[in-house]
């Protein structure tokens, strides 16, 4: 039986505008840093897993596993916890310095959130949440027919997969918790919006950076033309966020871990903006097909002299300087290009545009890019 240890701890997250914000998060080990979001849990349909929660915080902590049934805590069915007749936790919790051991068997595949069930109005906005992916029972990443989100024959084959978890930060709340002062959640006013715990442009950086020890997950989506890119969205904040990828539509194949299909009737649908509600999950296939322009089949418009155009007004650009995939052009002198091989970049962002700022300054917040490379290692876009 797979055993996963989660340690509830505190730490400081970093924002690109130089802020350092106190938060609570889950860690993989006793000595590791608190993480935002918590460590990804990858489980398998029908396989019982055991999750041990160790609590180093000063108040009780529990975990809610959405979409799961028959959850046991220390061998008993989970139950709400009360002190003096007042609700304290939705589920069995670990006392400060204590632990609780959950076991359950995921009965169907999909994307799920796990999050605190104790003082959740405070603990989830403080950072006690993470993503869980349940593989179908027949999952086999080495056989295309069985490398699916929902099982063979469900039209959910994919080439690469990514998890994007939305969340918001009201720094006043975090400071109040750090200083032990009262805070009115009804006054919640976010100044930062995150994907996988980071604000743009940090979202576009790679996983596991030394200088973001508490925010290990990047959000850059990478693939090749024509590939099926599985995007798993999770809404971990207390607000809804309309996520809009440029480049093409996504086909929504499942919501809340439920395949959009009744018997043989397919109910999946395409959207260019998906509203990720609080606590919801959306599984989608993004497939960008090349329009076919190459240096041999040129674009039907004239590329102006780039010295006359706005390129990298922010001092940097993701552009190659060429209209063509896999070709690098001449970027004007003085502009830094982060383009590697002539890959295409398409923005993916919240369309409540104030959310793509860091405390009001664009660019920032809930924004990343989809990068389409002319060729890309098969080792990119794997969730473990």
């Amino acid at each position, binding site marked *: 039986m797979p055993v996963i240890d989660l340690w509830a701890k505190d730490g400081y997250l970093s924002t690109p505008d130089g802020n350092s914000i106190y938060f609570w998060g889950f860690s993989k080990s006793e000595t590791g840093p608190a993480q935002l979001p918590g460590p990804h849990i990858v489980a398998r349909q029908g396989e019982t897993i055991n999750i041990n929660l160790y609590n180093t915080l000063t108040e009780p902590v529990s975990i809610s596993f959405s979409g799961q049934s028959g959850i046991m805590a220390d061998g008993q069915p989970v139950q709400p916890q009360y002190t003096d007749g007042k609700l304290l936790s939705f589920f069995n919790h670990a006392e400060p310095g204590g632990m609780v051991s959950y076991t359950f068997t995921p009965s169907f595949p999909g994307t799920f959130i796990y999050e605190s069930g104790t003082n959740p109005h405070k603990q989830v906005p403080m950072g006690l949440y993470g993503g869980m992916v349940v593989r179908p029972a027949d999952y086999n990443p080495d056989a295309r027919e069985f490398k699916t989100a929902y099982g063979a024959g469900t039209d959910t084959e994919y080439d690469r997969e990514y998890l994007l978890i939305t969340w918001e930060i009201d720094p006043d709340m975090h400071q109040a918790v750090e200083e032990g002062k009262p805070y009115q959640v009804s006054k919640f006013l976010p100044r930062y919006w995150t994907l996988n715990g980071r604000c743009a442009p940090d979202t576009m950086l790679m996983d596991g950076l030394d200088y973001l020890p508490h925010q290990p997950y990047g959000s850059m989506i990478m693939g090749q033309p024509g590939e099926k890119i599985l995007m798993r969205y999770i809404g971990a904040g207390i607000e809804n966020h*309309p996520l809009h990828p440029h480049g093409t539509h996504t086909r929504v194949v499942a919501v809340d871990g439920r395949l959009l299909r009744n018997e043989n009737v397919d109910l999946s649908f395409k959207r260019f903006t998906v509203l990720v509600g609080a606590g919801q999950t959306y599984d989608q296939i993004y497939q960008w097909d090349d329009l076919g322009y190459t240096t041999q089949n040129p674009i039907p418009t004239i*590329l102006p002299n780039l010295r006359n155009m706005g390129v990298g007004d922010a001092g940097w650009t993701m552009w190659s300087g060429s209209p063509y*995939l896999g070709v690098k052009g001449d970027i004007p002198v003085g502009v830094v290009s982060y383009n590697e091989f002539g890959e295409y970049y398409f923005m993916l962002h919240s369309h409540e545009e104030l959310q793509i700022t860091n405390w009001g300054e664009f660019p920032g917040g809930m924004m990343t890019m989809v990068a389409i490379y002319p060729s890309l290692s098969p080792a990119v876009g794997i969730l473990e």
Partner: protein
Amino acid sequence: MATVIKRFGATDGWVSMPDGTDHYIFGFVDISVVPENQIFQYRGKATLLAPLLDVYEGDEVYLTLTNLGFPNRPDLDDTHTIHWHGFPNQIPLWDGVPEASISVPVGRDFTYYYQPLDPGTYIHHCHFEPVEHIQMGMVGPVTVRPKLEKELGLKFAYNDENTAYDREGLIFLTELDPRPHHLVANVQEFDWTEYSPEYWLINGRSYPDTVKPANDQSMPQQPFSALVEAYQGEKVLLRFVNIGFQQHCLQIPGVPLKVVGLDAQQLRGYNGEDISYWRDVIYIAAGQTMDVIFTAPRAGIYPLYNRNLNKNTIAGTEFGGMVTEIRVSPKP
């Protein structure tokens, strides 16, 4: 298929609300047929909404953006772009994201090219510092009509006879927070996390202006009417667009609404399953579009309004805001 050649100028201007207030905007103005030596006469004449781009599936569209500058803010030399929101399989050059391709400085032109292959309701907007440029008004509608219309000589939302209609209306939703408009006009910064709109608009107007005719003389920079008129029994297509920063929920009591398309995609499953559905309330998030068909009921006036009832106001006081009317006449 046809070749469509359009030219939009990016500039600034002013819009008015029913309470008599004026608000500074950025926006686009259609200069497609203006001689080159006269384009500067269109500085300061941006419209809210930006001009409609109305094309057929398969057309070749050459859309030139000319940055005319801001006569009210000559110090502000922002570049602009046009982003066709929802265009599938786009290449970055024509996607209008400054961080991933080109933007257009003051006095320069750039031509975007599109060959739309999927009919439906889209949006175009500037993507330069989008929180500012969208709120300031650089937003407009895009309609792509299906080939089936040309084949059968009738009107359809998609390439499917089940999406036939007689008349169409645009319900294009935005909000206006007067503070950033005032601050930008006065060379000041706004903290966008404090965004809190006071005006809720359909087609760039607040009720009762929404039901005034198109190109009304009293609102030269708000040319789009939101009044929908039909004869009893006619099928009416409403193209809902939300390019504000909030969710909205629109309803027309007494008129059931059939949702046939979302985000410029007909509601069809993998195997062609019909997954269209009926609603009384159209709940739409920022950056979404919905194609909705209803049958005009018995003659009368049917208000269309926001079920977030606080948005049916002018600056929070008078009745107005995100309201318009469906006026149904008896069969002629």
